[in-house]
């Protein structure tokens, strides 16, 4: 039996999957992602060129520091050289840079701090500058402490680093669990971001598809064969399927690339790069937790709930938004006109992403609660909360609201869509859309 919806799903799926751009995006994205994970580690481990720095240290602030292997320090005698001679010396020598530390009046540390100069034959690298700055900062701090009559060693000893082991106290005795907050934060955040990305990327595809059918004037031919809601639903499902396939390929490719690279190419490199990559991406840093603890933490997360929730909000959010975008696409003639309608539709999602950090910090707060109930933000906000273990009735309530809203929105969107796809050359307003509901 040739079910029309199946035919439509098939066409939507095949025409997209067969495109060269699909292949390109599907293959390149994991490579980029893998590169994002590996390259920082690779760069960090690359041996850098050694630099030789001459120091004209008038107040003997740095002496006898010789620097590191990478940045070797060498001193000029302040009685023989002044700044001009030192510069001349740099020009005629093999050295790479000149650091000038003036003594000024009374060796005032603040005067020194403000008047130090660094000259290089080439541009001074950020790394070198930071190295020098750190070194000097430490010395000047010490000088200041000494001037106040404080022993720097005492201060150094007083510096403490605290790392507390936290637990979640269960109802029963002995059910204490190692608190896995950093891991939960990472998990929730990444899952929320993935849902955001999926909804945004593929819902817009639905809108584009609708606009394409409208501008190419094929739509009236199609809906003389199938009902408009079948066309809309088929399109949403077909494009959703493209998304699922693309995601699956990405997951498989990423794991494979990561696996291959970590076992064969740079076995110890990834340990570093995992830490280096994460903070840049804005995810909480989980690299400092010890291995055994991580195992405990993973056990403390309700994975069936998190995975089930992920699948539910992943598709629920996509269906809800893609129905809205389909209605939007039907109302306009070309994508350029979509701006005025896009913002109100996408604003909730953007708010959900913006408030993600607040929700992570207080996963059971008022903001988190309401954001995870409101159906246009709940796919992202609730997903962020899920790993933290929240009352189960909230999950079900949020899910029920999402499903209910989905059916209401599909009804409304379907009506707008039905009228919109046959409207050409009309500048549509919100008022107009409202009227279409009653056609």
């Amino acid at each position, binding site marked *: 039996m*040739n079910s*029309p919806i199946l*035919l*439509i799903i098939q*066409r939507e799926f095949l*025409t997209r999957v067969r495109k060269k751009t699909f292949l390109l995006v599907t293959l390149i994205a994991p490579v980029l992602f893998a590169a994002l994970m590996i390259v920082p580690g690779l760069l960090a481990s690359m041996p850098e060129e050694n630099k030789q720095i001459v120091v004209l240290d008038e107040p003997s602030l740095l002496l006898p520091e010789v620097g590191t292997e990478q940045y070797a320090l060498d001193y000029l005698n302040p009685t023989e050289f002044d700044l001009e001679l030192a510069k001349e010396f740099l020009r005629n020598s093999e050295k790479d840079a000149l650091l000038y530390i003036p003594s000024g009046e009374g060796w005032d540390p603040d005067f020194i701090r403000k008047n130090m100069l660094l000259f290089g034959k080439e541009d001074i690298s950020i790394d070198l500058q930071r190295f020098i700055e750190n070194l000097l900062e430490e010395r000047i701090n010490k000088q200041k402490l000494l001037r106040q009559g404080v022993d720097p060693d005492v201060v150094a000893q007083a510096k403490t680093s605290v790392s507390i082991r936290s637990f979640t106290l269960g109802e029963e005795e002995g059910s204490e669990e190692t608190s896995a907050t950093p891991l939960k934060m990472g998990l929730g955040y990444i899952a929320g971001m993935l849902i955001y990305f999926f909804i945004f990327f593929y819902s817009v595809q639905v809108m584009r598809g609708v606009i*394409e*059918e409208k501008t*190419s*004037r*094929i739509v*009236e*031919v*199609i*809906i*003389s*064969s*199938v*009902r*408009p809601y079948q066309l809309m639903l088929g399109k949403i499902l077909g494009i959703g399927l493209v998304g699922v396939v693309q995601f699956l390929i990405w997951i498989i490719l990423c794991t494979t690339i990561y696996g291959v690279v970590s076992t064969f190419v740079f076995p110890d490199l990834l340990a570093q790069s995992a830490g280096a990559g994460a903070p840049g991406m804005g995810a909480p840093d989980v690299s400092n937790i010890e291995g055994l603890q991580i195992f405990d933490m993973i056990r403390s997360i309700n994975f069936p709930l998190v995975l089930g929730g992920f699948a539910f909000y992943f598709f629920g959010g996509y269906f809800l938004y893609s129905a809205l975008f389909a209605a939007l696409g039907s109302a306009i003639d070309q994508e350029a006109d979509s701006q005025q309608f896009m913002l109100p539709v996408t604003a909730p999602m953007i708010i959900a992403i913006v408030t993600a950090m607040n929700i992570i910090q207080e996963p059971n707060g008022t903001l988190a609660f309401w954001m995870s109930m409101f159906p246009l933000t709940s796919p992202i906000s609730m997903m962020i909360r899920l790993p933290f273990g929240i009352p189960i009735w909230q999950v079900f309530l949020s899910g029920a609201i999402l499903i209910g809203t989905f059916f209401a929105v599909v009804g409304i969107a379907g009506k707008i869509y039905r009228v919109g796809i*046959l409207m*050409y050359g009309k500048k549509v307003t919100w008022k107009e859309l409202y*009227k279409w509901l*009653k*056609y």
Partner: protein
Amino acid sequence: MISAKKVSKHYNKKVALDQVDLSIPKGSIYGLLGPNGAGKTSFIRIMNQITAPDSGEVYFGDELLQPRDIARIGYLPEERGLYKKMKVGEQVLYLAKLKGLTSPEAKQRARSWFERLDMVSFWDKKVEDLSKGMAQKVQFVTTVLHEPELLIFDEPFTGFDPINTNLIKKEIKRLNSEGATVIFSTHRMESVEEICDHIGLINNGQVMVEGPLLDIRKKYKSGTYSVVTKEPIEFNNEALVSNEKLHTGYSSILKFDEYPSEVIIDLAKREILVGFEEVLPSVGDIFIDIVENGPKA
């Protein structure tokens, strides 16, 4: 074949169709005529079940129009197009399958149509690589491929080049002679007069006149006659509408309340009568007549 009983449709207080009664006889070529905005497309969309009427019924044959009847109708809309990025062959098969054909059926029929219309080379091309005339042929094939009993063409000849217009008129006549009922909808009333045997004239959502074209033209005739003579003839001002000199003689348009047998006998006796014919009004004339004077009982 298909008939409407008291069909009304409103768009937000604007009346598109008002108690429309139309009946398209089986096997006819039916012209659905009227100016832009008369309600033609609204009516066609109701026949195609794209929209539903607010009130009234549509019968397909003797039974009420059903969703499954879609497969028995072929529709070429006024706003027509194809997926630009899709290959022609694939697209034709897809649209045919949406109309309920099986894959092998669709393939076989598409092949024979492509051969008949000399478009086999289009099969693997993308639509965006076709010329406009080629795309029009493809659109025509997708409309008729599932061998519908009823063919509906909305403004079929706008945008078609003369060669395609003739080709498609010929194909439509052939399909009609094989039993298909054809509906043409157009605001260019003169363009279908030669091929239609029935017409329905609508204006402002109301049917003004409907029936066999010849009957209607006879009903609305105004006693106008065309006379060609060897020599110029003179009449009183009331009878003579216009005259002009042709290279074969003199042509005069005359108006009489009754059949002018005496005038003809007189001209024949004088041996100057070359041609005589009753002039029936064109559909355009009838339309203007009705708008100005109301329909004739």
